[in-house]
């Protein structure tokens, strides 16, 4: 890794050792008729081997754009305008199309929210897994089919479903089939973009549990993207909270839940009712996420923040700073608390 800017030097490292994926100062822009939208602005994070990093935030916060940037499937009008994405020692942004084709699925695969759109409706699920395998490995059709059956078994689909078409499967089964394809080449990392959002909670729980077992068995890492913060707290090792294209806070899941540092995280946690917590009045957050054609000055959360510091938060942009060994947040209140402002 070369040329790390000063601000990146103090960005969150995951754990000791070299990260599997390292994103530095990533910038993604949508060039729309209304103007340029910085959907992702100077975002940095690492993911280490066998780790689950969750990214949470509301719609339009840039979390899915990050997933698309890391896999290089962004299409115009979206452009990566800055930063670096390293997978071990390979620069993903510098890869040619051929290199990318080989890299995707073998090293890094992706699971999308809508399994119905990810699967080809006119091919059986077996055929689609076989395709994925044969596109990357010099194996016979029979060998590929045997592997496909094995993969379906791994994700909990009975082998008699191998010749079923997507429309013959339930939503949960389709999402399992997509996960089977993502696993086909034993990737080191799987990016999951709202993989269970379209599913009912019971099915979601089954699938999350299966993903966790598969992760422990095969040792891959996961970048898990969702708006459902409670799911992330249960499922991921660390969580990044995105707001308006920026990383507001990142740290170990339990710490984020027990001791959130950014006012946005605190308000977000108080925005959804739980089934076991006290039955208190929940306020949500006033206002709406900003329009990124004209983002707010200073801290982008300040117009909705009830603890904003007058004169500072609307002027000065907060940088991520460390609050505990693996916990970082971008909020001026942190130095106010430290008393060194």
């Amino acid at each position, binding site marked *: 890794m070369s040329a790390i800017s000063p601000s990146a030097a103090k960005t969150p490292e995951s754990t000791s050792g070299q990260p599997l994926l390292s994103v530095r100062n990533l910038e993604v822009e949508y060039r729309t008729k209304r103007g340029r939208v910085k959907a992702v602005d100077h975002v940095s994070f690492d993911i280490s081997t066998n780790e689950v990093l969750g990214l949470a935030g509301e*719609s339009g916060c840039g979390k899915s754009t990050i997933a698309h940037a890391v896999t290089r499937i962004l299409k115009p009008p979206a452009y990566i305008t800055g930063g670096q994405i390293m997978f071990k020692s390979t620069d993903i942004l510098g890869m040619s199309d051929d290199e990318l084709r080989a890299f995707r699925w073998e090293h890094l695969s992706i699971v999308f929210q809508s399994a119905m759109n990810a699967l080809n409706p006119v091919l059986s699920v077996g055929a689609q897994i076989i395709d994925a395998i044969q596109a990357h490995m010099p194996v016979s059709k029979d060998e590929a089919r045997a592997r496909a059956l094995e993969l379906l078994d791994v994700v909990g689909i009975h082998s008699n479903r191998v010749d079923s078409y997507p429309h013959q499967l339930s939503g949960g089964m389709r999402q399992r089939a997509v996960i089977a394809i993502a696993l086909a080449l034993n990737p080191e990392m799987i990016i999951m973009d709202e993989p269970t959002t379209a599913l009912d*909670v019971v099915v979601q729980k089954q699938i999350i549990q299966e993903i*966790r077992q598969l992760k422990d068995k095969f040792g891959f890492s996961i970048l898990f993207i969702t708006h459902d913060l409670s799911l992330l707290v*249960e499922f991921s090792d660390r969580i990044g909270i995105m707001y308006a294209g920026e990383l507001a806070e990142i740290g170990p899941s339990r710490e984020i839940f027990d001791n959130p540092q950014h006012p946005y995280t605190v308000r977000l946690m108080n925005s959804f009712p739980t089934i*076991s917590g006290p*039955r208190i009045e929940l306020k949500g957050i006033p206002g709406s996420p900003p329009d990124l054609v004209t983002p707010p000055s200073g801290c982008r959360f300040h117009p909705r923040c009830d603890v904003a510091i007058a004169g500072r938060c609307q002027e000065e942009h907060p940088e991520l700073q460390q609050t505990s060994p693996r916990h970082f947040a971008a909020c001026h209140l942190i130095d106010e608390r430290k008393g060194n402002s």
Partner: protein
Amino acid sequence: MSDHNEPILEARNLTKHFNVGGFLSGKVVRAVQDANIKLYRGRVTALVGESGSGKSTIIRMLARLYDPTSGEILFKGKNVLQDNGRKAMLDYRSRVQMIFQDPFSSLNPVHRVRYHLERPLYIHGKAKTKAIANEQVDALLRRVSLTPTEEFAPKFPHQLSGGQRQRVAIARALAVEPEVMLADEPVSMLDVSIRMGVLNLMAVLRDEQDIAFLYVTHDIASARYFADETLVMYAGHIVEGAGSEELVKEPKHPYTQLLLSAVPDPARGLLTQDFQVKGEIPNLTELGQGCPFAARCPHVMEKCRQTMPRPTKLSETRWTKCYLYGG
């Protein structure tokens, strides 16, 4: 206001079967089977279920968008299904209003907010002159906290956020001064941070206007937050009903227990408990006469597969349909 102990809107043995695959195929989807619901003034009743459980079919029957296959809908004790005339329908809809899930498609993109709110005022004879309509539009916008009202009234739907659009939809429903509001997943398409604002607004309407709400949702935690009573639906059957708090604290029906154990809840601890559940929601065309949950139920008995248990009253506030408790 009149009596709070008499249900204002009641469904009795409401049943809806859809014929599918052409009328010769003989296939029938039993979307809703013998649903009984009572809505009271100033109370929120939640109907919770997974997709395909039939909760949206029930709300559509209550809104009179679908005709039931059998059963009765009583408004203030009078069966409303007997009269399908235009006058009767108009009258019913001025008392029972519906709020839809998707505020992006329930508002007409070519019309301003003002138009959406004026139309029901004119149609239902609440305003005769432009001046009165203006005044009422203003009042409606204030009631849903879209202020300053002169700024919001001339806006088009695309100029509003999802939460603001849903507030316009609520204001439009309020325009006819309804006594019952049927809300079909009113916040599930909104961003997490603005959902509570919309639910809190509806809670204010319940308290201040004495409106009876039916809140249809897949989110049992939000039902606990917003609803006084919660009904749980599975595969076309309402299987349990209880006060919202006692339901989540002590679920009785095995399906309710399964549903609650699947809800992510960090306050309950991390993903430690082993979640074991077999099977999926049954195909509604292949359901027999037994309990629809029998195939997945850890406590299944032989009689569960034969006949659907009848409701067993467990206390003044709760009941369930399960042989574990009687039936």
